[in-house]
Structures are given as C-alpha cells and as structure tokens.
C-alpha cells in the first residue's frame, strides 16, 4: 500500500485517563435544575411577603417547626453514616442507619401534616384564602413532595436491603441517593429561613 511508505510521526502516549463518574455528574445536574425550580418558588414567596389582603397573617399562625427541622437535618448525618457502613461492607449496620434515616424523614412529613392540619382546621388557612396561603402551601408543599419522593426511594432501598439484594457494589448508588437527600435538606434550610424567619 502506498500509505505504508510514509513513516508516521508517533503520537504521545496517554498516561492516565480518568473521567468523572456518570452517576455523580447526573445527580449534580439534577440538583442544579431542581435548585433553579425551587428558587422561583422562593422568589415568589419573598415577593408576596406582606401583600396578603386578608387574614390570617404569618405572624399570627406560624410557629417555627424546630423538632421537624432537627429531625430532617440530622437525617443527613445518619444517611452519611449508612453509606460509609456500606462502603466498608457492613450491610447490617447500613440497614440500621438507613432505617433511622427513613424514620427521621417520616417524622418530618408527619410533623408537616400536623402543622397543616392545624392551619387548615384551626386557623382556616387554605391555599385559596389569601396570598400567604397560596405561597406557603405551594412552597412548603413542593418541598414536602421532594421529601416524599426521597422517602419512597429510601424505602425501596430498605426493602432491597431486607431482601438481601444489597451489597457493597451499590455503595456508589446509595451515595447518589444521599446526595439528593442532602439537597432536600439544604432546600429546607432555605425554606425555613424564608418562611419562618424572614416571612414572619
């Protein structure tokens, strides 16, 4: 062949070729877009602070859900402990911490439900009462929806653990789930500050 006659210049050898993991990039992208989504709801909340035309007003009916917040934030720590245990291969310890995480998340949802029950039946605040109700229920409800989705995924992993399907191989996957959970917690910090500190 004619091309064989040309002596090609030898290209440099690639020493190392490390690329970021797909799961991490994917979950970070998801978190980025969710952040944009939440920030619009937060912006709407801040925009409508003090613009309600009729009672009830936030300072009359809202009290900061301290216990809820502590539960949700501490669940971020327990989920890290769980993933660390799975990485070390202690499936049983993982299961335990995972269960604690789930219970803490469930407590948060139950607390929110109790708060809403009080607001609706005691203070007569619904989504259509005034602008406060509109923005409060949509922002907090949106966050609660994300908590619910997270809890469902945590529950699926829990069932798989109980069935003995989970092993060290899935440590990466559970860590990705924990990143989502951290995101949900971080959003709660923003929502808490907006609704119960600035908005009151």
């Amino acid at each position, binding site marked *: 062949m004619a*091309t*064989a006659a040309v002596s090609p210049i030898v290209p440099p050898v690639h020493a190392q070729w490390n690329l970021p993991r797909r799961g991490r990039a994917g979950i970070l992208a998801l978190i980025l877009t969710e952040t944009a989504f939440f920030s619009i709801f937060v912006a709407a909340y801040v925009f409508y602070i003090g613009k309600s035309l009729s009672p009830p007003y936030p300072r009359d009916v809202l009290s900061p859900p301290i216990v809820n917040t502590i539960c949700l934030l501490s669940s971020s720590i327990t989920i890290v402990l769980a993933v660390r245990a799975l990485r070390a291969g202690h499936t049983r310890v993982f299961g335990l911490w995972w269960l604690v995480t789930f219970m803490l998340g469930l407590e948060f949802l139950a607390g929110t439900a109790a708060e809403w029950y009080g607001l609706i039946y005691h203070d007569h605040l619904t989504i259509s009462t005034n602008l406060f109700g509109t923005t409060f229920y949509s922002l907090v409800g949106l966050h609660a929806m994300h908590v619910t989705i997270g809890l469902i995924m945590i529950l699926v992993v829990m069932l798989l653990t109980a069935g003995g399907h989970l092993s060290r191989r899935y440590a990466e996957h559970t860590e990705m789930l924990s990143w989502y959970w951290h995101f949900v917690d971080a959003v709660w910090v923003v929502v808490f500050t907006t609704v119960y500190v600035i908005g009151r």
Partner: protein
Amino acid sequence: MSEASDQSRERVPKTVQVPAPTAWPMIAALGLTMAFAGLVTSFVVSAVGAVLLLAGAVGWFGEVFPQQHCELAEVEPAAAPVIAARAAAARLAVGEQGHRGILPLEIYPYSAGIKGGIAGGFVMAGLAVIHGVLAHGSPWYTINILAATAMANLANASTAALSAFDPQAFMVALVIHGIVSLLVGLLYGVMLPIVPRNPIFFGGVVAPLLWSGILYASLKVINPVLDARIEWRWFVLCQIGFGVVAGLVVARSERIHTFQHLPFAMRMGIEAPGVMSKRERG
C-alpha cells in the same frame, strides 16, 4: 498489507455490548402524560396513567437492577479506512504572496487619521457655513440644525430662530462635529490601507454617499421634522468635502510597517532557532 493494520484488526472484538431495547421508559412517559391529561379530561385517565407510570417505573428498575440488561451486537466488517480526498495540505506562511498579502503589512499611523479628521472637519464646516449664508443669509443656520439632532426643541423652531446665534446650540454643534470628525478620521486611517484600489475615491465619494444614503432613508422615519429642514444636495456636498480632504491627508502621510510578516517569536524578540520552520510557535 502492512503489519500494523493486521495488529489493529486483531484488537477489534467480534461483538460489542449495547444496552438492550426496552419499552418501559416509554410506558412510564405515557403514564405520566396520561396522569397529567386526566386533569383536563377525566379522573379515569389519570388513574390509568398512574398505574402505567408505576408499571413503567418498576419495569425500568428491573432493567437496571441488579445488573443492566445488555445485548450483544455483532461487529460489522470495518468501514473503509480513513483517507483524505487530497493527501497534501498547503500551508501558508504569514506574509507570503497570495491572498494573505492583503493583511496590511503597512498601515497609516493613528496621527494621520486624527490629522485627516481635523482637516476634513474644517473643510466640512466651511462648506456648511457657506450653504447657510447662501440659502438663509446666516452662517448660524446649519450649525443650529446640527445641534438640533441632540436638542429636540430646536428642530421645531422657526427659520428666523435658527438663523440667530445660540451659544448653547453652538457648543453642542461644536462638540458633535468635533468628535464625529475625529472618529471618522481615525476610521479612515485604519480602513484606507485595506481598500484595494483608489483609496481617495473610496474615502471621498463612495463612503460619504453610502452614509448619506443611509441617513436620507432613515431620517424620514426617525425624525421627520428635522428631515424636512435638511437640504440634501448640500449635505452630500459637505460630506464629500470632508471625505476627499480627510482621505487626501491620510493617504499622503507616511506609512509604517506592522511587522505582521515576521514570525511571532521574532516580533517578541525571542531567539527561537528550530521553531521558526514549523508553524509559528511562541
């Protein structure tokens, strides 16, 4: 057949793993759509959609857990080897004869542009004042009209008012005329070396006609009151006066070398033997 291509053929596998086709994501998407569509149709649609969404999600999960489903695709015989339609590539050295020659090797200094702008500005102002005296018997008329581009109330003023001296209008007109003359002069200094043939004709006639045309077409829409005041034949004459004088001044000044034809390393004053023969590398 060379040895190298034999080796590369051995490296080609017989089969390649590709993700197995699956309908579950589609079913999940249909379910989600129906769940939404139920809001505007009927509760039943939402219910069916929710069931489909759940089924799709479970099925999808089954596709990737505990191990993602794959199938093996047989490798087809390799496509034709990569060859160029034309093997030889021409490389141009900077400054070589040919189309890159247009790249200005010599330019006018910026001072030439500034001088041209000043000279052209004086000629233009002179012509404009002559027009004012001939047409309205007052040297201030055209000056006030120029100021009217920035001072809206002047455009509506009577001809008598426009013929009178107005210190504020005079200052505004002076600033506008001075800045624009300088800037256009600078532009001439930069552009004229690029114009291939007869820079005086381009700078003196073509360019003024072009922008006079644009102004003539657009001023009617932008500012019809001002447009009615402008005597366009004199306007074009003033522009050409500016263009010719500025172009002459620029074209007569001495050119300076740009050193663009020298390699980058040489322009930077770096001794770089052995590098010059390749593409210029710093």
